[in-house]
């Protein structure tokens, strides 16, 4: 099987691969799970905005302001189309972290009587495989409101244990916040099963799509979710931009999060009323250039085709799994085959601390992530201090994985564990 992506040609869009690593080595970038590299199309789009249309949106009547507005709202439409959403339901934030906090704080700000108001006796559901960004905001919301935080455990294989789903998502449940794909295990979770259970009890489902939206086709309606968050920087986009999507019917009833300019309807010294969504949730001069850059990134992905991106990912993941599972002294964490599993492979090496593994790989130009991956509770559950994580994207090829595998062997020799 060969990849539907011509990686060698595509890589020319990414200037960073011209850079030489330590000792003149070529860059083998296996850390897209943390952040992706950016094609020149994205950098050019940002620069074009600054050099031709830069002005504050929503605030001026002059030509540049009109153009900035068109660029920004056009970007919103592109993002909305990318996830099958309406533009008015698509909010620009600075990151997935802000998106998830926005939802949690907005719920926390809601008044008694609102369907989003939480109190003692209510329940928030998460899972053991959540990234801190989709865990701590809910911990804090639970503490503030008196609601109870409960969670899905994981199975030995590293999948969500849904065997007790009817106990976990019960009548008390108001919110289910769950990751689409684990950033450590690679596991892709069965979201529809969860949304069905949530719907039965009237709970909203918040999906952390940080690891999924950049990698395969997502449709918020098909998923049946209520809210979705992802970060631009993991999807070829600029840093400093994230997306928060929410069903229109929810957004219109929700309290704002950040307050200030451009999100208001009227203001007096003591009071204010809010503009309709999405502006209600976008206080201040927004991250316009980053929104434009993200739109260019999503256009870049769409031009490749998300089906092809997913196929390419699957090919690399299968190949990496087959090689790593066979290595002596190496343990793959999470599902051992490619079924319902994204382009993230965590592993440990007997006798070498992940930090030292990362250092040894770095010596060969390989960039991986090591440590707890902002999923410390999962590490504790797995009884690990950390893992080494290789994650793949459109600019990786099978040779990258061969270099990884060979370097692991060299590291084992160097540290004398083989």
């Amino acid at each position: 099987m060969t990849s539907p992506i011509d990686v060698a040609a595509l890589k020319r869009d990414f200037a960073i691969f011209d850079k030489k690593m330590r000792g003149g080595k070529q860059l083998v970038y296996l850390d897209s799970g943390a952040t992706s590299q950016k094609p020149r199309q994205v950098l050019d789009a940002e620069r074009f905005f600054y050099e031709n249309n830069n002005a504050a949106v929503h605030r001026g009547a002059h030509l540049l302001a009109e153009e900035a507005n068109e660029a920004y709202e056009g970007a919103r439409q592109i993002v909305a189309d990318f996830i099958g959403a309406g533009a008015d339901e698509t909010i620009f934030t600075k990151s997935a972290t802000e998106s998830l906090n926005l939802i949690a704080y907005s719920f926390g700000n809601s008044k008694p009587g609102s369907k989003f108001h939480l109190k003692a006796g209510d329940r928030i559901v998460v899972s053991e495989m959540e990234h801190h960004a989709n865990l701590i905001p809910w911990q804090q919301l639970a503490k503030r409101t008196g609601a109870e935080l409960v969670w899905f455990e994981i199975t030995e294989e590293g999948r969500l244990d849904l065997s007790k789903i009817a106990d976990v998502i019960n009548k008390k449940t108001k919110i289910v916040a769950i990751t689409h794909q684990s950033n450590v295990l690679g596991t892709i979770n069965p979201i529809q099963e969860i949304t069905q259970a949530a719907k039965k009890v009237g709970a909203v489902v918040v999906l952390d799509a940080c690891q999924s939206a950049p990698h395969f086709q997502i449709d918020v309606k098909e998923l049946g979710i209520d809210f979705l968050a992802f970060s631009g920087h993991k999807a070829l986009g600029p840093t400093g931009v994230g997306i928060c999507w929410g069903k229109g019917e929810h957004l219109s009833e929700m309290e704002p999060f950040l307050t200030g300019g451009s999100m208001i309807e009227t203001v007096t010294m003591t009071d204010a009323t809010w503009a309709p969504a999405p502006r209600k949730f976008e206080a201040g001069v927004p991250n316009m250039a980053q929104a434009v850059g993200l739109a260019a990134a999503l256009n870049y992905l769409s031009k490749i085709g998300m089906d092809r991106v997913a196929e390419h990912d699957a090919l690399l993941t299968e190949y990496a799994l087959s090689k790593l599972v066979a290595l002596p002294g190496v343990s793959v964490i999470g599902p051992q085959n490619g079924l319902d599993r994204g382009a993230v492979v965590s592993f440990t090496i007997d006798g070498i601390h992940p930090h030292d593994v990362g250092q040894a790989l770095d010596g060969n130009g390989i960039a991986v992530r090591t440590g707890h991956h902002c999923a410390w509770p999962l590490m504790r559950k797995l009884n690990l201090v950390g893992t080494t994580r290789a994650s793949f994207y459109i600019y990786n090829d099978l040779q990258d994985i061969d270099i990884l595998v060979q370097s692991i062997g060299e590291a084992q020799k160097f540290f004398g564990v083989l």
Partner: protein
Amino acid sequence: MELESLYQEVILDHYKHPANKKLSPDYTAQVHHVNTSCGDEITLNLSLKDGLISQVSWEGVGCSISQASTSIMTDLMIGKNTESALSVLGEFTSLMQSKGLAKGDELVLEDAVALAGVSKFPARIKCALLGWMAFKDAISQSVTQQEK
């Protein structure tokens, strides 16, 4: 300056001498709308009688475009039935979204075709629509009211 293409004579006339700009004491529905980006405001009273729009009156502050557009709208709507009023409104909205490509049907829109140039200035479309959106809101409130 190309200002003439935007501010046609007829617009400046309506701006200086706005029609129906004095709230009637009685009405079927009263609405208040605000353009949040600039602070322009309008209060509009609408009277429906036997399915006909018998009166539209208004008060408000705003730029020449919003004032003229509202003035023109009231002249157009008074005497129409709600159905044809909404159809005119639909046609005007399309004209505003035409990005300078449409001219508007003078038989339907009368003086409002003078506002066609606004569609080239995205930031001003809201100004031109302020009174019309208030009118639309008032219509739907009147209808619900009369159904009760």
